[in-house]
């Protein structure tokens, strides 16, 4: 295994402490529990309406940002807090590679938890509605949104000890209130980028039940969403590498 892969793997076990993992896993599975319990005697239309509402209003807009925020911000934030940054930076590894490894680790840890939630939610719909075709779109959308959040929150976690607070303000004030009210800003909302991939891939019967604020002016499209995620990730890696090169690392 290469040094960057080692760093990424260590980051995953570092940020996924037992208590944190249990707490975030329970949060990630909550949408599945809600859908499963609230649709037991619902009509097909009602099931789809509940599923779309929970997917937009809870899974993408709450679970994905919180999981990605906490785990990605910890990728570098925990190193600074625990004073272990010198252990990894004083190595013959270019800083941009180090940045990619740390973001990759935070992203992988977030993916694991978000994937658990996506599979749970898709399974709940599969069991109740008999359609398992939502699992892959939920995974794809969740992973794309998580990638964008990780690219933003990993450097933020290094820059400020209040990364969680800043991230929550971003997720709930900016994405929730501001972008929710002004649809033209939807492409600046990471979870909406992920949701646009979900909307493009999920069975068509769900779309009529998706609230307008979920997409704003973003068109459903998996390729476009993935491309945006790659661009944001590249910028995030470059910015984090620059920070590690140009700032005092204490």
């Amino acid at each position: 295994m290469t040094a960057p892969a080692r760093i990424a793997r260590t980051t995953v076990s570092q940020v996924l402490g037992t208590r944190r993992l249990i707490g975030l896993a329970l949060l990630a599975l909550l949408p599945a529990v809600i859908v499963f319990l609230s649709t037991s005697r619902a009509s097909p239309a009602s099931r789809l309406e509940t599923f779309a509402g929970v997917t937009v209003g809870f899974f993408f807009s709450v679970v994905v940002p919180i999981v990605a925020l906490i785990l990605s911000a910890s990728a570098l934030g925990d190193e600074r807090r625990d004073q272990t940054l010198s252990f990894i930076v004083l190595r013959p590894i270019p800083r941009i590679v180090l940045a990619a490894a740390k973001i990759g680790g935070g992203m992988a840890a977030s993916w694991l938890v978000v994937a658990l939630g996506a599979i749970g939610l898709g399974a709940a719909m599969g069991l109740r509605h008999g359609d398992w075709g939502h699992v892959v779109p939920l995974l794809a959308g969740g992973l794309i949104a998580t990638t964008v959040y990780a690219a933003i929150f990993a450097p933020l976690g290094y820059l400020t000890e209040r990364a969680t607070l800043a991230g929550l303000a971003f997720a709930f004030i900016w994405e929730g209130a501001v972008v929710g009210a002004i649809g033209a800003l939807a492409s600046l909302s990471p979870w909406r980028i992920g949701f646009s991939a979900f909307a493009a891939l999920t069975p068509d019967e769900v779309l009529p039940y998706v609230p307008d604020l979920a997409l704003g002016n973003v068109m459903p499209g998996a390729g476009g969403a993935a491309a945006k995620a790659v661009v944001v990730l590249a910028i995030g890696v470059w910015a984090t590498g620059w920070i590690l090169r140009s700032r005092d690392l204490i």
Partner: protein
Amino acid sequence: MTGEHAATLDPAVVPNPTVEVNAASKWFGQKVAVSGVTCSFGPGVTGLLGPNGAGKTTMLRMMVGLVLPSEGTVSVLGKAPRQNPQTYRNLAMVPEESSVYGHMSARRLVRYAAELSGVGDPGAAADAAIAAVELEDAADRAVSGFSKGMRQRAKVASALVSDPQILVLDEPLNGTDPMQRLRLIGIFRRLGQEGRTVIVSSHVLQEVERMTDRVIAMVDGKLAAAGDIAAIRSAMADIPYRVLVESDEPRRLAAALLASDAITGIELAESGFHVETSDLRLLGTTVPAVAKELGIRLRAFRPEDDSLESVFRYLVHRR
């Protein structure tokens, strides 16, 4: 005057340096941590001495590239480490702060260090480094349960595992017991004798004395003294020592001691008196002798100036 000739005259620089600090300053906002320091380090052990807050840690962090100089330059093997990560193949640091992953075992930690440094056989290298610091018995325990001394040894093993040519150690003996200290000092001396550059910071002169003859002393962010430890010691001999003397009749004893050549000043205190002397040994024989002659019981004779801080300050003000 040639550079080489200048180097032989300035005790702060060495002829064939591996680490060079050139007019380096570092400030954090309004606080100046290091101010215009020029010095260099070569093969062998060099002690970086100074009281707490002298700027030693900032200086070491600049050397390894954790902190960027606000002014001046620092180079390791002719390059700035931060701009040239390959420098870290030959450079390792043991920081003063925690810098260990508590959830890992010592063996896993040292192996991780080896893997990140690109060591060929990380498992074997980790075992050898752990053996070098005599941590085999605890190697498979989580570092979070270690005492401070054991953590220090785990950190030293993590630094040694990549077999670095230059080793920078920030207060590496802190928290270690006398046996561990002896062992670590032996390791550092051996590394120095092998031709590696070993830079060890400490605020305890006696510790450094056991490792090396060459010292760079810092106070208030400035270079206070450099060179042979004996020369610095002789400079310290000019400083008056201060001793607290306690007895049954302090006033009578103090009055009798005033006539002694050993004493340069006396100040009465609540339970005794403070004596200033330039010859601690002479004072040590004079005070008991006078007390015995007067039939006065001596309760305490305690040097008050064991801290090096006053010595370093003296060196700075003398410059």
